[in-house]
């Protein structure tokens, strides 16, 4: 699939956040293109609310691979007045769309390769592997190209965009099994560590600068790990003692709560919130 993007698109980019799904994408890109360099740069849309361990890992991994890493930040979009926050500490995930679309325009990217998976959320179950977006980055679920066999159609007009999802058909367990098999390095916060948290509405909220504890909160130190690493304000850890990938594979195979259900505080707003964000240009 990565080679199909490279073969059909003039100027693609691979979205790399340092998260586990995009770590798998980088490995697949190595498998697809080595010993040559990747025929595309890497891009991270930084919300400014990322865990420092993840940002450091992102930079280290790109350097090890010797590939070009571009970073564009939501902070800049806020400064330029393109993003207006309702509240200074509100989750910035939805604002990534603005910064991403600006980066697409700045570099003239015609395809963005991302690590989204269909099993993550109901609205993603119908996403194409090659998803067509109009010039505003919008996803129209009723106007998607049929995908037959493995014959992908990435033809677009100027200004339009293809989002390609090579690990569309992987589940969370597949991702962890792949990381185990390929012995891929990950940011340290994916593994169990002790962290100060407070419990709110059934989820654990880490105590950080942007998510401070409130008066009356019971702050506990718990052994936790992250199942997803996004914006700090909306990514919650789970209790865990798994310190190796193999232990995480076992926990994932026996878990009783969905990846986003336990850990994404922003998707719970409404049953259709992911669909809404995707229509606005989100991944």
């Amino acid at each position, binding site marked *: 699939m990565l080679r199909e993007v490279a073969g059909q698109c003039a100027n693609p980019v691979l979205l790399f956040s340092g998260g586990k799904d995009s770590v798998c994408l980088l490995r697949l890109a190595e498998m697809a293109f080595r*010993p040559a360099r990747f025929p595309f740069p890497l891009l991270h849309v930084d919300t400014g609310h990322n865990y420092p361990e993840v940002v450091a890992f992102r930079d280290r991994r790109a350097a090890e691979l010797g590939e070009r890493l571009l970073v564009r930040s939501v902070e800049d979009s806020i400064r330029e007045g393109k993003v207006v926050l309702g509240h200074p500490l509100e989750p910035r995930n939805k604002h990534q769309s603005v910064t991403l679309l600006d980066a697409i325009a700045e570099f003239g990217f015609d395809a963005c390769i991302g690590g989204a998976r269909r099993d993550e959320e109901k609205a993603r179950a*119908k996403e194409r592997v090659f998803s067509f977006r109009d010039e505003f980055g919008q996803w129209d679920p009723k106007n998607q190209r049929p995908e*037959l066999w493995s014959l992908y*159609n990435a033809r677009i007009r100027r200004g339009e965009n293809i989002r390609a999802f090579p690990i569309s058909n992987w589940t969370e367990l597949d991702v962890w099994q792949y990381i185990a*098999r390929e012995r891929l390095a990950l940011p340290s916060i994916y593994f169990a560590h002790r962290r100060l948290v407070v419990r709110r509405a059934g989820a654990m909220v880490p105590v950080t600068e942007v998510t401070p504890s409130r008066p009356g909160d019971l702050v506990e130190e718990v052994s936790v790990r992250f199942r997803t690493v996004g914006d700090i304000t909306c990514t919650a850890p789970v209790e865990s003692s798994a310190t190796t990938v193999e232990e995480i594979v076992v926990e994932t195979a026996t878990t009783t709560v969905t990846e986003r259900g336990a850990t994404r505080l922003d998707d719970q707003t409404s049953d*259709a919130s992911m669909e809404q964000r995707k229509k606005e240009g989100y991944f």
Partner: protein
Amino acid sequence: MISAAEQLSAPLDLGLLRFLTCGSVDDGKSTLIGRLLVDTRSVLADALSAIERTSKRRGHAGVDLSLLTDGLSAEREQGITIDVAYRYFSTGRRKYIIADAPGHEQYTRNMVTAGSTAHLAVVLVDARKGVLTQTRRHACIAHQLGIPHLVVAVNKMDLVGWSEQVFDRIQADALAVAARLGIEDVRFIPMSALAGDMVVERGDHLGWWHGPTLLEVLERTPAAHVEGAEPFRFPVQWVCRPHSEAHHDFRGFAGRVESGGVAVGDEVQVLPSGRTSRVKAIWLGDVALREAVGEQSVLLQLEDEVDVSRGDLLVRPAEAPAPVREVEAMLCWLAERPLSLVRRYLVRHTTREIRAQVTGIAWRLDLTALEQVPAEGLAMNDLGRVSLRLAQPIAADRYAEVRATGAFIVIDEASNDTVAAGMIL
């Protein structure tokens, strides 16, 4: 060096089965998928409690399992499924991908899309209604797409008093349809997705049924890449030329083994040019392989400096298909704007794009009567036999023999849309 078999023990390759579910409106297809997911414990607690709340709010007696699969809010408003959705579950023995195709008449295109990658099709029949036009249509499309295994799930047995006679009559009717279509592998299972009988668990109501449950059939269906010896087919996706110090003269051809296999030292031919060479090395990432087999994405190096580019096909000389500029094909039209016999389209076949024109329509398949009828054109959801003329030759196989090199899509350059799916005859 490691063998190809060792490489294939990847988590994603190990016995993966992709199957398609299709049925008419209200056959209980979403409930069946929900049942499969719940009874194989693939639905996690929070997702289950979310649909329990919704079921209660809507005043359902039990948990409405169909809510697990009806994803988009547009669909939830209408209460129907309008696009192909993909679901995942695993049993410990095997991983599954379900392509859930909606049942409406106007969605033949969705079923073709979902079926193009499926290895088994589950066709649902409502036990109260028996074999309908829709059932015939689904069986026919599954057959046209070359899906090797067909399962007829006779659902809602609870609503016909779990009657063996009702099931026997439906089985006889469906067997007649299968015989007429020439379908060889067809199985029948009586079930109630609502109550759960014969989906994953055997249940208490169908004691007279001694055949397997649906899950047992799924678990025993052979995986795609273990069936039969096929000719080696390797469409080149990308030419790897690092131009680096360490790999100054390196030239590798990247692609996926779509059929058969190849080993170091084998003679290969480049199509359409016809030049031959031998395989010098096979790379899977930085690991050198002795051989590559079906579905592996690898990099091939050849002994000689032959000209190879994206869109070319590597084969064995003895098994080489003759490049042709005229093909006969079954075409399923997917777009709202009907097929035009005066316009030129783009055909994407393997990794190659060629201009093409449809020069004639032999017949259209009437999916109600299952008969070939004369046709002036093809409109959305029509399936017909056509002749195509291509601007450049392609190395093609019959779809019935090799899916990957027998399939193509048609693209309308005006809209860039994929407007048809084609299967070479």
